[in-house]
């Protein structure tokens, strides 16, 4: 008897040993990492700065290769690792960062960048013109916007500390494109660029205030302070100017469940919680020891299928646009007036030069009678209209439902088809599958980068719009460019390929022990301290 019991117990022990061996194996890396943490904690107690900052982010980034991703999760981390030749100041104007100065030739086709000296990469090597040329030329190939807007451009070494950008034709907005945040032209060492494959670079080495340490898939990305960082002396402004790493370590903790992010902030597990859901804003706002930070970050844009189906008829689009009550749509999408604003502009509201209210007459009309007339004129006869959406983004789904409701009341036959994000993205690229959809579109720096004007996004096929965009881009003076954009935005509201429903703020919550945190289009963690 005893023997058999013994047999069973030993079998179980063997089994658990196997299991423990499995789990031990995977944790080796974390051991090293936790040793580091102890060291940094010691350091932290010595002064005001230092310590470890933990920020809960909603999604795992697909890559940290800033040059080839439009993923917010990736860019928000990459921004701390990499720097660019030029970047945005608080007025969203391009200003030098790794470049000392920028000169444009008289004909506007050649830009010369003089590099700052004494800049080192995280691997200890000095930044050279070769690195810049390799990085920038790769960016011209990987970035969809660079490909679209800077066709056949190229970078070359033109002096000991100088690189030159050669354009085929004049483009007034080159520096704005280079300072753009989506797929940004991160400067990396030449070897890293050369060893990159189609899925991106394999090492994350930049010149920024924080360096890449470790990425535990689906757990966290760990950055540490870069001791040899060469800060600019000029005052911080937007993403430009002086940056200082005031904490020793940053952990971007991947926490997909929003209530866990909030609860973690309350219990001190995280110092910062990114992307607070709109429905919990009021609750988080009223929590003790928690501060909320709001900043405008994207527009909610309504896209019509101008190529196929019922919506290819402009009269139909006018009818719908006339019927919509945008107050209701925005309220349903974002729930609290603090986090949204009704405005027809496609551009960032804080970007005074570009922000435009052209098209106001065609915005939020909410006139059902007029809409009915237009529907009759268009000869609408109960054909089914399909809105595709995804619940992965609650605001997109809510907007779709409210639009459906408003149009159904008008007697239209509107269906909402809800998919997961992957399916939604695939269907969006098949014009036969949809008539309309809502999408949150992140702010861009110049109109040419707008998805509403990008034929590859929702199939916009409009030569007039492209011609007008060319006029914006080649305008002699900035003032002309702004005026041309004003006209173009007005045209977008006449032709109705897209409508901006409004502007949305992102919400970040920080706990009381975080100081100096100031988001700029995204969470920015330099100049930020954390106390125990």
């Amino acid at each position, binding site marked *: 008897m005893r023997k058999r019991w013994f047999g069973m117990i030993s079998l179980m022990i063997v089994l658990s040993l196997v299991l423990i061996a499995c789990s031990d194996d995977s944790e080796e890396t974390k051991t090293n990492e936790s040793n580091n943490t102890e060291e940094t904690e010691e350091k932290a107690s010595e002064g005001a700065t230092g310590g470890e900052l933990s920020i809960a982010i909603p999604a795992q980034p697909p890559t940290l290769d800033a040059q080839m991703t439009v993923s917010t999760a990736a860019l928000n981390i990459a921004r701390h690792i990499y720097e660019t030749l030029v970047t945005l100041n608080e007025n969203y104007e391009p200003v030098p960062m790794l470049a000392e100065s920028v000169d444009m030739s008289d004909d506007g086709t050649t830009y010369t960048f003089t590099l700052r000296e004494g800049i080192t990469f995280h691997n200890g090597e000095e930044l050279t013109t070769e690195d810049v040329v390799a990085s920038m030329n790769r960016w011209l190939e990987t970035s969809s916007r660079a490909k679209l807007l800077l066709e056949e451009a190229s970078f070359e070494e033109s002096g000991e500390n100088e690189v030159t950008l050669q354009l085929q034709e004049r483009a007034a907005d080159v520096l704005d494109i280079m300072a753009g945040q989506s797929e940004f032209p991160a400067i990396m060492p030449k070897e890293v660029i050369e060893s990159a494959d189609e899925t991106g670079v394999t090492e994350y080495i930049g010149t920024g205030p924080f360096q890449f340490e470790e990425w535990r898939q689906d757990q966290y990305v760990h950055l540490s302070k870069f001791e040899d960082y060469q800060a600019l002396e000029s005052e911080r402004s937007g993403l430009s100017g002086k940056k200082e790493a005031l904490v020793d370590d940053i952990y971007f903790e991947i926490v997909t469940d929003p209530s866990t992010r909030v609860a973690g902030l309350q219990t001190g597990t995280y110092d910062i919680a990114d992307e607070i859901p709109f429905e919990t804003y009021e609750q988080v706002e009223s929590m003790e020891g928690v501060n909320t930070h709001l900043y405008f970050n994207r527009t909610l844009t309504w896209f019509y299928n101008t190529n196929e189906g019922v919506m290819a008829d402009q009269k139909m689009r006018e009818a719908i646009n006339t019927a919509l009550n945008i107050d209701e749509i925005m309220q349903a999408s974002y729930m609290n007036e603090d986090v949204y604003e009704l405005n027809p502009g496609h551009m960032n509201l804080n970007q005074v030069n570009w922000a435009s209210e052209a098209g106001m007459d065609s915005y939020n009309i909410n006139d059902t009678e007029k809409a009915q007339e237009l529907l009759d004129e268009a000869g609408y006869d109960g054909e089914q209209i399909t809105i595709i959406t995804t619940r992965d983004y609650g605001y997109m789904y809510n907007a779709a439902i409210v639009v459906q409701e408003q149009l159904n009341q008008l007697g239209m036959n509107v269906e909402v088809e809800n998919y997961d994000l*992957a399916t939604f993205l695939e269907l969006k690229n098949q014009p036969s599958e949809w008539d309309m959809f809502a999408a949150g579109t992140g702010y861009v720096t110049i109109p040419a980068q707008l*998805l509403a004007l990008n034929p590859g996004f929702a199939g916009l096929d409009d030569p007039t719009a492209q011609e007008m965009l060319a006029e914006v881009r080649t305008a002699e003076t900035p003032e002309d460019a702004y005026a041309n954009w004003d006209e173009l935005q007005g045209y977008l509201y006449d032709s109705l390929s897209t409508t901006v429903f409004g502007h949305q703020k992102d919400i970040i919550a920080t706990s009381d022990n975080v100081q100096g945190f100031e988001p700029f289009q995204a969470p920015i963690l330099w100049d930020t301290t954390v106390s125990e």
Partner: protein
Amino acid sequence: MFAYIIKRILSLIPVLFVVSVVIFSIIHITPGDPAAIILGQEATQEQIESLSEQLGLNEPIIEQYTNWVMGALTGDLGTSYFMRETVEEAIINHLGPTLSLAIFAEIFALIIAIPIGIIAAYRRGSWLDQSLMGISLLGMAVPSFILGLLLMLFVGVQLQWLPIGGYAPLSDGLFTHLKFLILPAISLGAIQAALVARMTRASMLEVLNSNYIKTARAKGVVERRVILKHAFRNAFLPILTVIGQSFGTLIVGAVVTETIFNIPGIGQLIINSVERRDYPVIQGVVLIVTFIYVFINLIVDLLYGVIDPRVRLDKK
């Protein structure tokens, strides 16, 4: 015995083959393009097409499947589209937390369930029996995510006794490791505990009425010994089956619990991979999980023999 094990392991092959074909077909029929997910919501069609090409997604389905099977046979499950690691690495990295959680939840379930089951059977019909069985019914009825959220709210946020989520590996120390696992293990183990408790009670009742128990009592064996040695041991066989099945369920079924408590386990891996359409990872995980499930069943079958000599297999 040895031949039996070999036979059982060989019988795995058709199972794994069918599973692989089914899973491969399902994920490729499902719309959604991994390239679109990698590139993000704002990517244009041109970018998506070029990345699809690079990932080999434009090749004919049959060819993709053959490539994958050939790889799998040589132990190469491919590389994740989304994470910069191979499928084997991804699975190993995510298996640790899941196994820890499953073991811990199972231990929790057994510690609670077996005494409850025995006591309920012994005091059959009493108020104690009825209240214990009432509680276990409740345990089965409350979904683990609700229990999880409630525990998180009271123990984590209100009382702040335990962390509300996250994971620390065993290498951080057993105490730290367990601290993160207590709440998820309770929320995950509760249903299993209820199940095992009811099974124990039923099985014990059957045994307690049998003649050899009467004989044992008549012989004057101490009551505790009658219950634990004579009755429980004989009642254990069906309980073991339930435990084996429930352990399998704990490994694959911790998806929701892992999401709520932010534990980077297999459940999260598979959910994330489905959302990202990370085909190689989905295929790899399903294959491994199937294997584990069948393997656990095999162990359970072998354990039968250890407990009950009548089902021993090597008896000629």
